[in-house]
């Protein structure tokens, strides 16, 4: 069974540009989570999808971040326009419908560098 995949693995962009990160959860997992770790800081929750609906987006830092999960399958996280402080590693995780955060499977992450 394929695990959670994320694309790209690395992205280097300039301040002001737009970047879109993609996450493909494990097939059949209704719950999808986004997290990020900025340099030197802790991994922090961004938002949680249940299928295509945003269950909780309280961790989104500001309105430059937009997450979508059309059709309840893969998800995208767009940063527009990117700022220097957005640099870090963005993780996606998924869990089964009846599972919670404790049954999450994480992807390898996307390392975003904003210059």
């Amino acid at each position, binding site marked *: 069974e394929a695990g*959670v995949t994320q694309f790209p*693995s690395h992205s280097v962009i300039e301040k002001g540009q737009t970047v879109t990160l993609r996450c493909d959860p494990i097939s059949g997992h209704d719950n999808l*989570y986004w*997290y990020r*770790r900025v340099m030197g800081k*802790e*991994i*922090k*929750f961004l938002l*949680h999808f249940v299928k295509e609906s945003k*269950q*909780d987006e*309280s*961790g989104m830092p500001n309105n430059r971040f937009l997450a979508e999960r059309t059709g309840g399958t893969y998800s995208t996280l767009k940063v527009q326009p990117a700022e220097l402080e957005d640099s870090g590693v963005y*993780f*996606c*995780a998924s869990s089964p419908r009846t599972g*919670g*955060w*404790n*049954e*999450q*499977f*994480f*992807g*390898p*992450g996307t390392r975003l560098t904003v210059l």
Partner: protein
Amino acid sequence: LAKTTQPISMDSYEGQEVNITCSHNNIATNDYITWYQQFPSQGPRFIIQGYKTKVTNEVASLFIPADRKSSTLSLPRVSLSDTAVYYCLVGPISSGSARQLTFGSGTQLTVLP
């Protein structure tokens, strides 16, 4: 939110038992304690979870004292492949949201030959 504190790094030798302690003084009644392992260029991977006393699985043991203000992850007879960052998480699992999770800074365990 319950904040967690862990040592930044630990070194050990192959074959030794490693104990990593996490402090969580503000743990709430409905919080569980979960440990994740992370290798370079990979996402965190669930290791073990517990609420109180002791939990053991094929990978590790988790010791939680009665006051639950700390917990200790025990890795028996570590090998070089156990070199990773270990995270202690505290949060509710039954009714809480993932936003209540507290990821600590993690402990970098380095196993030496």
